[in-house]
């Protein structure tokens, strides 16, 4: 299949593994920013085949799992209303709020539907004029243009029953927060390819210069990821700290200018808490005042939401106290997930109505208690890490 098969070639992959092995004379810690890249690394076992001198740190967390608890609770409150048709990308449905998730709301009779595009939600609003149709707009910069387009379309079609609950997060402020964290061990970044398709690469130049850190824009197929790692290692070994584009078939330096124009009209930057990380200044997008009529936060008064994030951690620190390579948010989320799966029953079946259990690893890897929170086994063994890592977010589109 064009653009897939040629970037999965085992012989070329072997060559890249050899080149990385030869280039890395010291140990380096590189963070791949996007869950889609993490998925590719785990799915293809790249971490097993990579030299031990290159450590991949998965983080800072995919946009699904860093969505703040308060926002999830807000979504749950809105979706529970009788007149609301709540729409979302599929993977948000499993993300737990303080007490439940969107699947539970659906099981209790809430009208919660998975859509593949925010424009589907706009169409639903047109088809159901008697209902309030709400779309849960999450994601990095990648999904933002389609969300912005949905708001535009809703306005053009004069739809008064469409609104969007926006919880967008932005990559550059997260990289900056990581680089200013005293506990961060990250020495180089694989920037999220599809984020850069939209936003271009220029906004990363000041970060690379100021923090003396290589940032390699990287794609998602195995050879993309390996080439990103190779270039990052070469920069680190030669003391360079540049923005490099290893995904030229999808990314141009200036990005997608019409999309950026639209984003600038529809959204404005705001402070945003990241689940498991904490507040990162100016790291989110919300709807601009001109589009306030479509803002679900304003439209639905859900009262005061009192939430307590399980644990506000400092930023991902790679092989930190826990000795593993996993970023904070995912781990905190799983801590949030764990208790509901063992609510006093040891038979593995959740009490109450038929609803989706939360995505915890299967019992056989649990080994009683919270052993699945332990670091994954040594990465050269047949890795169970694939399922121990981000269950919510491991796919393309960053």
């Amino acid at each position: 299949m064009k653009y897939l098969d040629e970037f999965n070639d085992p012989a070329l992959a072997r060559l890249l593994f050899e080149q990385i092995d030869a280039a890395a004379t010291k140990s380096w810690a590189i963070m791949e920013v996007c869950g889609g890249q993490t998925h590719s690394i785990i799915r293809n076992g790249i971490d097993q085949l990579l030299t031990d001198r290159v450590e991949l740190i998965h983080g800072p967390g995919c946009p699904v799992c860093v969505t703040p608890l308060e926002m999830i609770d807000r979504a749950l409150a809105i979706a529970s209303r009788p007149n609301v048709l709540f729409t979302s990308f599929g993977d948000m449905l499993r993300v737990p709020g303080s007490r439940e998730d969107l699947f539970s709301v659906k099981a209790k009779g809430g009208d919660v539907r998975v859509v593949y595009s925010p424009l589907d939600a706009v169409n639903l609003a047109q088809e159901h004029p008697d209902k309030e149709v709400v779309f849960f707009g999450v994601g990095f910069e990648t999904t933002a243009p389609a969300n912005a387009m949905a708001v535009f379309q809703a306005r053009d079609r004069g739809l008064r029953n469409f609104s969007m609950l926006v919880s967008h997060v932005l990559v550059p402020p997260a990289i900056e927060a990581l680089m200013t964290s005293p506990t961060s061990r990250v020495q180089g970044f694989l920037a999220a390819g599809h984020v850069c398709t939209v936003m271009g690469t220029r906004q990363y130049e000041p970060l690379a210069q100021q923090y003396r850190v290589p940032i390699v824009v990287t794609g998602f197929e195995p050879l993309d990821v390996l080439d990103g790692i190779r270039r990052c290692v070469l920069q680190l070994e030669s003391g360079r700290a540049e923005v490099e584009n290893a995904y030229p078939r999808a990314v141009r330096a200036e990005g997608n200018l019409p999309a950026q124009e639209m984003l600038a009209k529809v959204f404005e930057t705001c402070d945003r808490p990241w689940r498991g990380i904490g507040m990162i200044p100016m790291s989110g997008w919300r709807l601009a005042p001109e589009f306030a009529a479509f803002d679900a936060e304003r439209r639905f008064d859900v009262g005061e939401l009192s939430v307590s994030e399980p644990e506000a951690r400092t930023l991902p620190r790679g092989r930190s106290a826990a000795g593993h390579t996993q970023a904070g948010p995912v781990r905190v989320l799983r801590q949030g997930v764990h208790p509901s799966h063992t609510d006093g029953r040891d038979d593995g079946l959740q009490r109450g109505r038929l609803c989706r259990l939360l995505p915890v690893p299967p019992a056989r890897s649990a080994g009683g208690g919270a052993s699945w929170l332990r670091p994954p086994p040594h990465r050269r063994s047949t890795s169970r890490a694939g399922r121990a890592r981000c269950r919510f977010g491991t796919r393309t589109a960053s």
Partner: protein
Amino acid sequence: MGHGGGGQLSAELVQHLFLPSFGEAARTATPTDAHVLTLGNGVRLAFSTDTYVVRPLFFPGGNIGELAVYGTVNDLAMSGAQPLALSTGFVLEEGLEMDVLGRIAAAMGAAALKAGLQLVTGDTKVVEHGHGDGVYINTAGIGVLPAGADIRPDRARPGDVVIVSGEIGLHGIAVLSLREGLEFGTELRSDTAPLNHLVAAMLAACPDIHALRDPTRGGLAASLCEIAETAQVGIEFDERSLPVPEAVRAACGFLGLDPIHVANEGKLVAIVAPDHAEAVLAAMRATDVGGSAAIIGRVVEENGGVVVARTGLGSTRIVDRPLGEQLPRIC
């Protein structure tokens, strides 16, 4: 909803709710698709039931009626049985068009003839408008096992070969793309088909087939995991040897799904002793539904209960059965 997805949650529901609640009455129940009853004269009957709630009712390559016949036929066939007769139970939603029901019933008749069995008894109930998706169908079937056939997941032995009967992922992606209005260049058709003739051909080539599974909901991954867990053996397969149509690969890539988790409705996976593998494969390839049959892996001693995939790059990863429904991901 996840509890009906055929994945880990469905298995938990049976294991932790139904079987304990049924108690002594379910003492002889087997967690397999078909139960084998031995009569006084030594004749062995396989008995199975399944309920069909597919939406939309008609999809490229099939409809709920065909599915309801072939699904139960295939459950019987996975024990090696040739189906004799099927009962049909309908739950109809008030307002369902007679024409639609007629087309579904005609499809069931044709499907029964193709599989070589009789539809013998039935029942119909109607529920109020809004309480069903048009029509739900339950079928229960009986079949006769040929002498000597002993096909059970726990018979998988280290050294055995894993064969899949054809291209995977077609049914799930065909239904999904129609339901959600997605297009992937070429039209995908469900692989809905009866497997009893294929199984008969396989048994003719080798009466000692160890295990058979039809990877419906939960896909190939769920079937392999079930065999590995039941027999407490490891299963290794090579991702590159999986027959995955290009359109399925494209759709899965687009939606963030894995083809090994996508439902099939006319495929089986067979566990066969290595000495018989080539003969069985040849017999499968000579049938109309087994033309693309391929050896994909083998049963191993190590990693008991675990399925391991060898990736294109030469690394390995553990394959889990899907948790519940498959969700498209953005991330």
